[in-house]
């Protein structure tokens, strides 16, 4: 099914391309029409949504095929695929909606599917907790999003993209209304795309089946926030304050998640933090006004991160469910296909040319450099850290000796490896979509998106600066890889077990900067106290007696009135005559 829709999307893509039109709007029916509010249920198909649709259906189809192999012996495989398909549907709705409300339906839909799929193995209470956490975190973001939509409606009297943007382009930059709208929308995007301070759900979301992590928490759903901001690029261009906030949040997230990733020992957790960090990159790009670059990084990231997750899934599958990288090792010989695809993805995410990650990351770094050196350094540090922990993962898993006794790793079946290989090809060559002019390309991808998103114009750097800017990260990355190789392959350092004592910095990093604990202290405790207070004091002493009292009063009144209704005919007659008398007297007096 998803494959079929991919084919349809591809056909649509080429037809739109050949027809040369910019966008097409399909209005299905008038959805809400109340007073001045008129919201059609319409789809908007332009270059941005087409790009997203291609990613969703393409990567989604590969992951579905992969899941056939990965989930084949699960007892609830049917509901798994049903939920995956519902997710794909919601995600398509999200990117195809022609107004904020349809987008919001898809937004909620993917949130729901994410909840369902994280808690797919619901018999484990920890997984349920993770699912709930993801849902609650998302809801915080959703609230912001709703407020943003309401504000948009109040400001522009419409929620349809084209009308909003037409009206917005007449407004001057930095208006309070626009700033507020963009801030609220940003909160939504923060929740969905797992940025500080709402990012802690994503690592926990790894409780779900690995294909779910690949599809939802790497390739598509978490990028919804990026998509939404790119879609609203006109609004964001008018709100420089919000853009600065986005940059700060993005770079902080990128650095912090990368540092945390250094110390994680669960293969999927590492990848999760890497996702958070890469999303931080995209936010940096968004904050810099380079929306098409962000979408480009989103695309390449979808390829290589889906590949990484699927590769990790393949490893976990081979290790019969073991996820601790300290217990793996030496899988290179046993699983050559997985190894090579994983290597390709690792190189891509590290930004080695000519792999796809190089082009997108390089673009972001260049734009960061243009903006300010500080952001550039932060982003570069993030990139180096990413490179380090990815190679640490790679070396620990695939090199060295096998460290788990009694395990018999084996290569995954073809139905799982073929999607891996396709994704590997995409990861390797995906970057050629957008070759910068430095390498003789013409930035096809950015040009393609030009009609849908409105990036800020940049002055462009001189040729030499660009060359230097490309070479500096490259050399540093090579050094880092070398260092990782020395540490984990030559010396064969294995990370200490959880119980071992470590320095306080290590502790902080290992415990993910104590974000969860801070949240528990700052939100859960007060709320727990508040709800306890409300239950014992307000509920038991005020509300309950009041509600009971209404019931008691009614029944007492009923028994009182019942005395009137004894069926005594002469009493009825008296009552009737009394009524008539009163009526006449009333007429006489009035």
């Amino acid at each position, binding site marked *: 099914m998803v494959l079929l829709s991919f084919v349809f999307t591809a056909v649509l893509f080429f037809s739109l391309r050949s027809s040369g039109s910019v966008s097409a709007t399909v209005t299905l029916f008038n959805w809400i029409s109340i007073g001045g509010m008129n919201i059609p249920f319409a789809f908007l198909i332009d270059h941005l949504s087409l790009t997203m649709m291609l990613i969703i259906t393409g990567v989604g189809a590969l992951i579905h095929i992969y899941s056939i192999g990965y989930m084949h012996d699960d007892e609830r495989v049917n509901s798994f695929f049903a939920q995956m398909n519902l997710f794909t549907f919601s995600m398509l709705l999200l990117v195809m909606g022609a107004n904020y409300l349809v987008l919001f339906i898809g937004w909620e839909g993917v949130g729901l599917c994410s909840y369902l799929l994280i808690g797919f193995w619901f018999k484990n209470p920890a997984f349920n907790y993770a699912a709930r956490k993801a849902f609650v975190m998302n809801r915080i973001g959703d609230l912001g999003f709703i407020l943003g939509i309401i504000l948009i409606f109040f400001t522009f009297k419409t929620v349809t993209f084209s009308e909003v943007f037409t009206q917005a382009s007449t407004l001057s930059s930095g208006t309070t209304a626009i700033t507020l709208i963009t801030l609220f929308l940003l909160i939504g995007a923060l929740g969905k795309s797992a940025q500080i301070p709402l990012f802690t759900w994503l690592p926990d979301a790894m409780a779900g089946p690995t294909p779910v992590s690949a599809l939802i928490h790497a390739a598509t759903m978490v990028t919804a926030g990026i998509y939404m901001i790119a879609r609203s690029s006109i609004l964001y261009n008018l709100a420089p304050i919000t853009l600065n906030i986005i940059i700060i949040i993005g770079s902080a997230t990128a650095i912090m998640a990368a540092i945390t990733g250094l110390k994680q020992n669960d293969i999927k957790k590492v990848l999760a933090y890497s996702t958070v960090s890469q999303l931080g990159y995209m936010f940096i790009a968004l904050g810099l006004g380079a929306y098409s670059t962000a979408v480009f990084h989103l695309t390449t990231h979808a390829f290589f991160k889906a590949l990484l997750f699927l590769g990790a899934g393949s490893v976990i599958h081979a290790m019969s469910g073991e996820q601790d990288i300290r217990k793996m090792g030496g899988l290179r010989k046993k699983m050559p296909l997985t190894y090579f695809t994983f290597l390709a993805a690792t190189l891509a995410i590290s930004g080695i040319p000519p792999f796809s990650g190089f082009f997108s990351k390089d673009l972001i770094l260049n734009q960061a450099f243009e903006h300010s050196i500080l952001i550039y350094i932060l982003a570069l540090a993030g990139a180096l850290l990413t490179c380090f922990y990815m190679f640490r993962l790679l070396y620990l898993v695939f090199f060295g000796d096998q460290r788990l006794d009694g395990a018999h790793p084996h290569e995954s079946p073809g139905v799982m490896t073929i999607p891996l290989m396709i994704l590997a090809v995409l990861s390797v060559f995906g970057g050629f979509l957008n070759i910068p002019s430095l390498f003789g390309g013409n930035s096809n991808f950015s040009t393609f998106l030009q009609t849908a998103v409105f990036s800020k114009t940049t002055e462009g750097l001189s040729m030499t600066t660009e060359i230097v800017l490309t070479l500096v990260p490259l050399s540093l990355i090579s050094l880092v890889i070398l260092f990782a190789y020395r540490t984990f392959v030559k010396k064969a350092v294995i990370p200490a077990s959880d119980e071992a004592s470590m320095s306080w910095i290590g502790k902080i990093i290992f415990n993910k900067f104590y974000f969860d604990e801070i949240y528990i202290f700052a939100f859960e405790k007060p709320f727990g106290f508040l709800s306890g207070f409300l239950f014992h004091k307000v509920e038991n002493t005020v509300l309950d007696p009041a509600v009971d009292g209404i019931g008691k009063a009614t029944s007492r009144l009923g028994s009182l009135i019942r005395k009137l209704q004894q069926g005594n005919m002469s009493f009825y007659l*008296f009552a009737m*005559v009394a009524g*008539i008398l009163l009526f006449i*007297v009333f007429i*006489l007096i009035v």
Partner: protein
Amino acid sequence: MTFLFYMLSAIMIISALLVVFSTNPINSVIYLIICFIAMAGHYILLNAQFLAVVHIIVYTGAIMVLFLFVIMLLNLNKAIIPQKSQLTRISAVVTGGLFFLVVLAATRQTFEIHPRYPFTGDIGLVKEVGKALFHEFLLPFEMSSVLFISAMVGAVMFGKKDN
């Protein structure tokens, strides 16, 4: 003439009170017949001879005989049913009196009546009533036969013994 009116009125009211206050149903029926005959006198006084005759035939001849039949068939001629309580009876009398006063007051306050047509003495004759009945009120007259049939069916239904 005026004397006749007051005479008939006195008979009517006294017999009506006796209908209410006599304990034996048979006596009630007899007093009611007297009351109705006095009312027929009133009709004649009002120059409504047709109505007077119909009244005698229908009420005194048919309805009251029906009452008597039922009372005698069911053997109700003794005052077997106890009276209502003292309080209820007093309140009934008070209510009746109140009603009388209130309605009288109402008519006194609101009515200012003048004749619509110049006086003719023969509207109550069979000829005039018949004309009105079979010209203006022909449809209701025919419909009344339907009412009678349904009443008859209902009476038979109720009176039939349950199987």
